[in-house]
């Protein structure tokens, strides 16, 4: 495909890929993404209000301070979730009965519990229990006489683990399970002849996975990964329940202090919308490129 115009990219958001046939004016009007224009207008109106209205300006200046934490939490959580997802996704289709069942247990457990409950559970139950476990290992090492290794482990304090860290752990574990299903589907989407061809050349199972299967699987799931990244960014708002000072939490604080709820939550909504809109355009572009490569 040669040059694509911006309006092509836009209409691609709402409609199947543009055909090579020239479309009539009516068809073009029909498939034109009017909703997208409306969305842009809403954004423009809000940002205008931010510039012109002092109360909006003040709220914006206050709330945008949470942007950094939102981005940081999202990036860390997504990075760790990818690792967990890769491991669990491969575990799900492993021939080893133990790893297959462990991976399935993890995925099904996470999928069956509301995310908000999981965040409370992981941050306030699982993390402290885990730290206590580490303390106990420290005590055990001490009893063996390994002071140097024991002391740092004993010193860890379950109560003092930063809430932002707990939030990242909770989101990573949750999204790791979602990504596991994506990776599993991605691996299974690769033709089984690929594994056969690789093995017939004398590659080991691991080599075939690494050089042949995974590169294709990951390319197949890139758009889905992008969508989950956007979803994670939105779900990072849930960690406001842990008082992590990301956008939503700061908006909550601002609203409670000033009683300017319209300003607080309009700006919060628009901040998320701006980021997710830009990201979903990027995902669309990636999707378009991978589809082109396949031709």
């Amino acid at each position, binding site marked *: 495909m040669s040059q694509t115009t911006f309006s092509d990219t836009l209409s691609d958001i709402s409609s199947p890929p543009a055909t090579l046939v020239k479309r009539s004016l009516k068809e073009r009007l029909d498939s034109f993404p009017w909703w997208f224009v409306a969305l842009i207008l809403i954004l423009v109106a809000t940002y205008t209000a931010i510039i012109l209205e002092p109360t909006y300006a003040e709220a914006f200046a206050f709330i945008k301070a949470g942007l950094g934490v939102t981005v940081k939490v999202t990036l860390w959580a997504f990075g760790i979730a990818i690792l967990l997802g890769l491991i669990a996704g491969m575990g799900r289709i492993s021939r080893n009965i133990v790893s297959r069942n462990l991976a399935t247990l993890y995925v099904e457990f996470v999928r069956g519990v509301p995310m908000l409950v999981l965040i409370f559970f992981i941050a306030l139950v699982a993390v402290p229990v885990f730290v206590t476990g580490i303390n106990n290992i420290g005590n055990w090492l001490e009893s063996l006489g390994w002071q140097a290794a024991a002391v740092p482990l004993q010193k860890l304090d379950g109560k003092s683990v930063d809430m932002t860290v707990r939030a990242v752990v909770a989101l990573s574990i949750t999204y790791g399970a979602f990504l596991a299903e994506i990776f599993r589907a991605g691996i299974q989407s690769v*033709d089984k*002849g*690929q594994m*056969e*061809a*690789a*093995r*017939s*050349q*004398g*590659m*080991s*199972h691991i*080599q075939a996975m690494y*050089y*042949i299967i995974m*590169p*294709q699987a990951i*390319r197949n799931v890139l758009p889905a990964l992008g969508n989950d990244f956007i979803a994670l960014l939105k779900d990072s708002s849930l960690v406001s329940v842990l008082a992590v000072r990301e956008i939503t939490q700061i908006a909550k604080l601002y609203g409670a202090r000033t009683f300017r709820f319209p300003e607080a939550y309009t700006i919060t909504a628009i901040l998320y919308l701006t980021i997710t809109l830009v990201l979903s355009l990027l995902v669309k572009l990636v999707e378009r490129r991978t589809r082109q*490569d*396949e*031709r």
Partner: protein
Amino acid sequence: MNAKPVIEVKNIFKHFDKVAALNGVSLNVYPGKVVVIIGPSGSGKSTLLRCMNHMEVESSGEIYVNGKLLNGDQKRLNYIRSEMGMVFQSFNLYPHLNVLENVVLAQRIVRKIPRKEAVEVAMEQLIKVGIVDKANAFPSQLSGGQQQRVAIARALAMKPKIMLFDEPTSALDPEMIKEVLDVMLMLAQEGITMVVVTHEMGFARAAADEVVFMDQGLIIEHGTPSQLFDSPVHPRTQQFLSQILSH
């Protein structure tokens, strides 16, 4: 024949769940020979071929390649496989790699050959199958016949002692069958050991040293092309040949 067989298949059975695919098959393949396996679909000919490098594992019986028993030892199996090229009906080129890298990859990671040398070998093989001008193309940009020739080059780059062909032309458009068969004929004349499952009787006649006719998981008849095609003994062979040669 005095030479030791390079592939010895000893009384193998294979069943998938309840369905029997092979019902006691024995076959020796001698060095430098071209053995063509023919038979109706479902006769077990592909299964037999795929057992020869353990793409399928036989339910019972034994297979020796170069005197080595194929068993559960993965390391040994990988080594044996690296010395047997396999060409598939559906090509199975690696779509995320270009033609050159398709031919280079296994040399690098299985044989640990330095890149420069592996590229040289790859180019040599691509020249041989007549597709060197597409070295930088991706598989999706090639026709079926071209893809299959790359797949042959990919297998040859490992310098195999044996080549297995599993219906290499069955997925091709008719006008592309010849270019693949020409490459295979050239290989046959070079004296590489080949086992070929195919429906191309013309190729079997021209290239085969031995033809094996299979039906219902058994070898029904085994002989030279002229014996098998011109004076088949078994009624089932006669029937099969009359059906496919009559039009």
